[in-house]
């Protein structure tokens, strides 16, 4: 998406940030913005997931608009 000129980012849980960064480098976009949320997802209720989503909105918006790296 980024290569097509669209705003793009990935959301990773803390346990997968290493993979996300390495994968972005391997695919030729080392600067791909990655928003980080707490791990794990699998144990959480839908309400908890909503809270996590709300908490990372600003980070996601900042990464997409380029005001945060």
């Amino acid at each position, binding site marked *: 998406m980024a290569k097509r000129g669209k705003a793009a980012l990935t959301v990773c849980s803390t*346990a*997968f940030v*290493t*993979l996300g960064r*390495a*994968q972005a480098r*391997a*695919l030729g976009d080392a600067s791909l913005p990655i928003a980080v949320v707490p791990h794990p997802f*699998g144990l959480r209720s839908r309400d908890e997931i909503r809270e996590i989503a709300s908490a990372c909105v600003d980070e996601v918006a900042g990464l997409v608009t380029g005001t945060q790296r």
Partner: protein
Amino acid sequence: MNAPEIDRAATLECADDLEAINRLYRERKWSDGLPIVPPTPERVERMLAHTKRARYDVVTHVAPAYGAATVERIAVNAVMAGCDPGYLRVLIAATEAIADPAFNLQGIQATTNPVAVWLVVNGPAATSLNVNAAFNCIGQGAWANATLGRAMRLILQNIGGALPGEMDRATQGQPGKFSFCCAENEDASPWEPLHVERGFRRDESTVTVVGAEGTLNMNTHSKDAMELVRVMAETLIHPPSNEYVHGGEPWLIIGPEHAEVFKRGGLTKDDVKRHLWEQSKMAASQLSTKELQRARDSRTEELGEIEAGTLLPISPTADEIMLIVAGGPGTHSTYVPCFGNSRAVTRPIEI
């Protein structure tokens, strides 16, 4: 014509000392944790003499790092693993196979699941290369089995970039990730061998790659074919199974004595698959609540609405239960659970 620089294996000078070389490989994370055979230019050349493929041919790019798997780089890893030069063509075919989208190498390499890449060799190459299909065929002791499986792991790690804790996210992994390779015991099988089932001639040689999550021994002295089917089917049923959540491709290594029981009971390979599929259906209520939701996310299109009482088949069709005959004498067969989101791929081995 020279190949682009990026596709050449790097060479470096090092003291002619095995311990120093292994220290270097250890520091750079180029090994699987065991000592390696130094891939000197001479050894790599000897390996390359056993293929008609050009040195810098890119066989594929290996996920998740998408490193270029040139024939030369495959040969380097084969030397490191201790392979005989004649094994190279098996590894080239296996490397082609893992790149097939149906195999889902990206998922296999980066998952938290304990997925090994299991190599199954069929046809004349299995005999000529002495790939063990009999006693202890997925255990230790046979040079071809041990080093071919190990070389595949090094390719996955060194070309594919799947280093544990980095891009390989396996929670625990499993011993098969060091090495997992065998041949089918075609002479002991009452049925057509795997590669013939998958569309190849019996006199062709093939390698099949399987995303394998482990091995589970099934020891039964039963001499009744249908009873044997029943206990095997009940072995497959376990709630925390990726196969039931996603619709998998379970593999069974049928021991020759069990294969004989099936033969005497008049069961064809298709019969055994069909009975196993029917009898291994598991009530969705046996899944945990989370897994039931995951099964719904993954299989509603295939099965329709999934309720607690829905009987989930282990695979979408009976054909997707895979059977090979291997091993020596004894009342044992082995269940090899599959990753779930993966299908085995077979490729011909260059003559």
